[in-house]
Each structure stands twice: as structure tokens, then as C-alpha cells.
């Protein structure tokens, strides 16, 4: 194991313990770790955006030589991108409206046909299936159909939820509570998994490197 790897492991373990100290109570070490994280993530983002986006998409097309022709059309999004950054200057912030209008308007137009044909219609057609062939799949299909219908009725607020509509809405609430309960169960699983991951690092990687078992 190289010296760089050993130093890295101890640094990572130390930072892990600093953040875990928050469980006891908020303290200056935790705040320090928090702000180190913020600074490192800002710097990391800056470098990643430059080398993965700005340089290959904006700078390289203007500076390429050889058989690859320079693409001057890219000056348009570069200027619009600068308009976005000028949002930091209050007197020039209005320029960013053109950039956002182009981006948001463009994707609003793209969204309508794509989500309807690619998501809405398949979801709808997979709800309405023939009931059968056996009684187990028939009940399952009915549970699905009734559930989707009742949930949609619950979220339809143009009708007052009284009488029949109210009763259908109550069934919808029951389905929603079951779904949220399932989400809660899965959320607990997710959070515990993250803790398991850190403890695995501390035991297998950090302590393991000292005992030779890592």
C-alpha cells in the first residue's frame, strides 16, 4: 500500500469521525468539516464543468485546427451563456431572460409530445387490461384498476368530495397511505444502507489496512 493511499485512508477516516460527531451534538469540528465539504464540492464542480462541458462544447469548436472545421455557430450559445452569468450584475440581469426563454421554452415544447406518447399513454394502457384468466390475476387487476381510479378521483378538486365522490376519495387516500408507507419502509432501508456503507469503509478499508485484512 503506497504512502499516498495510507494518508488518504486516514484522512477519510478522520473526516468521517468529524461528521459523525454531530450525532452527539453540533460542534466546531463538524462545522469545519461541513464548510470544507462545501468548498471542495464548489471547486470540484468548477473543474468538472470546465473539462467536461465548457471546454469540449464551447472552447474546442472555436480553436480546433486541422481537418476539423471551426464551428462558429457555437458563439450563439456562448453569448447566451454569458448572459446567464451576467445575472450576477443587477443592471444587466435582464439579459439572462433571453437565455432562459430559449432553454425553458424549447424544453416546454419538447416535453408535451414526448411525455404524452412516451409516459402518459403507456401508463394508461397498462392499467386497463383484460381481467383474468385466473381469479388471482383477476383480483390483482381489479385492485390496480380501482386504485388508479380512486387515486385520480382523490386528486380531482374540481368536484367537492362529498357523497359518492367523497367515498371514492377515501378509498384513494387508503391506497395513497399504503404507497407512502411502502415509501417510508424503503426510505428507512436507503438511509440504513448509507450508514452500513460508511461502517464498512471504517471496518474493512481503514481498520482492515492496519490489520492487513483490507
Amino acid at each position, binding site marked *: 500500500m503506497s504512502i499516498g493511499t495510507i494518508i488518504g485512508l486516514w484522512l477519510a477516516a478522520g473526516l468521517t469521525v468529524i*461528521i459523525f460527531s454531530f450525532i452527539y451534538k453540533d460542534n466546531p469540528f463538524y462545522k469545519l468539516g461541513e464548510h470544507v465539504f462545501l468548498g471542495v464540492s464548489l471547486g470540484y464542480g468548477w473543474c468538472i464543468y470546465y473539462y467536461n462541458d465548457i471546454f469540449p462544447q464551447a472552447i474546442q469548436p472555436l480553436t480546433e485546427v486541422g481537418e476539423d472545421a471551426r464551428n462558429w455557430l457555437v458563439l450563439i450559445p456562448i453569448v447566451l451563456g454569458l448572459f446567464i452569468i451576467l445575472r450576477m450584475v443587477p443592471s444587466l440581469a435582464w439579459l439572462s431572460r433571453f437565455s432562459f426563454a430559449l432553454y425553458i421554452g424549447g424544453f416546454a415544447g419538447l416535453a408535451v409530445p414526448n411525455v404524452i406518447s412516451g409516459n402518459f399513454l403507456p401508463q394508461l394502457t397498462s392499467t386497463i387490461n383484460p381481467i383474468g384468466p385466473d381469479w388471482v390475476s383477476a383480483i390483482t387487476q381489479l385492485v390496480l384498476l380501482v386504485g388508479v381510479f380512486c387515486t385520480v378521483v382523490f386528486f380531482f378538486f374540481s368536484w367537492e368530495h362529498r357523497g359518492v365522490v367523497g367515498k371514492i376519495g377515501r378509498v384513494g387516500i387508503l391506497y395513497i397511505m399504503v404507497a407512502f408507507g*411502502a415509501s417510508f419502509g424503503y426510505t428507512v432501508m436507503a438511509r*440504513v444502507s448509507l450508514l452500513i456503507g460508511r461502517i464498512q469503509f471504517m471496518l474493512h478499508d481503514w481498520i482492515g489496512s492496519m490489520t492487513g485484512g483490507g
Partner: protein
Amino acid sequence: MNFVKRQLPVVIAFCFGVALWAQYYIPSRASNQALETFTGSWAIILAGCALILGILSAIHHHWTKIKLKKPGFGYSIVTLSCFAFVVLIGWFPIQWPGFSDVTIADGSFFDWIFLNVFVPLDATMFSLLAFFIASAAFRAFRARSFEATALLIAGCIVMLGRVPLGELIAIPNTDISMTSIAGWLLNNPNTAAYRGIILGVILSQVAISLRILFGIERTYMGGGD
């Protein structure tokens, strides 16, 4: 000037939106080329600039805090110092001793900082949630009503059913176990409820898109004149 500042962006949004909507139904070579240019180049550059704006805003916030010596400005010095350090090692092609590569490549100092500083800090921040969700489950989740009881029972079924232990909680000589019950619950009532929600979300997505195209929704323009 009022037209340029307030009406022209709405016109641009409408024209580009309708053009890209029409492209879906007219997939000619020219329209595909236009879509390729917009999505594969222009939109990606704009998204990157928006993210850079976010970074600059955060830097500005901390710089202001230091300038005005607001409470906790020492931590802001730490933040900006770390930012400057990471940009120095990641942006400029400097060969640091002990590292095989430069800038963001594998084996560089930047990559080492990512793996040994960024990863443990990010991962540990989120792992704290495990403690708080356990504490919240114990102290706050009460079956006060019929709906809350349904929520709790479904949560407990999924929690026990989606771990290996769930296969051991079973009715002997049958296929019925906590795992199979959790699976049925997820694939049927859970699917039904979330599908209802998804259908509603898609419809509202379409509604908001139409409002943007026709200039009714203008929040993206921000405030000011």
C-alpha cells in the same frame, strides 16, 4: 425597450417551443439536425453556464460574509480557501509530486482529493440520516388514525419484507412469506397509487409547458423591469 426586456423573451420561448414541438411530427433531416444542434450543443452549454452561475453565487455569498465580518465568517474563509485550492489543483495542468497525472485525470491530485475528501464527507453527511430516521420512527410515528395505521403497517411490511429476514417470516408449506406479501403490496396497491400520482404529474407538466409557451407563466424571467 420594454418590448425587448419583457415581450421579446416570451416570443422567443413561444417560437422555439413550437418549433421543437413540431419537430416531433416532422422528423426530416433538417429538423433532426436542428434538434441535434439545440440539445447536443446549445442546451448543454447553457446548462453548464447556469451551474457556473450557481457556483459564483455561492462564492459571492461567502465573500460578502467575510467582507462584512458577519458571525461565522471564519468558516467562510475555510470554504473559499478549499474552493481555491481545489481549482488550483484541478484546473491548471500542474504536475504535483507523487501523482502520475494532471488536472482531473485518474491518478491526479484532484482525483486523490475527490476520493479521500469529497467522497467520505458526502457519504458520511447522508449516513447521519439513518440515526435520525430511527429516532423519528420511535418518537413520532403513532397510529393515531386509520390512515396512519395503514401507513405504518405497509411500512413495517416493506421493511421486513425487503431484507433477507423476510423470507424466514413465512407460513410453512406455502409460498406466503413477508417477502411475497411485500412484493404483492409494491406491485399492486403501491403501483396503483403512484400511477394515479404520475398521471396527475404528467398532466400538470403538460399544463405548465403550455402556460410557458403561451406566455402565461413567466417566472423564469425573474423580477425587475
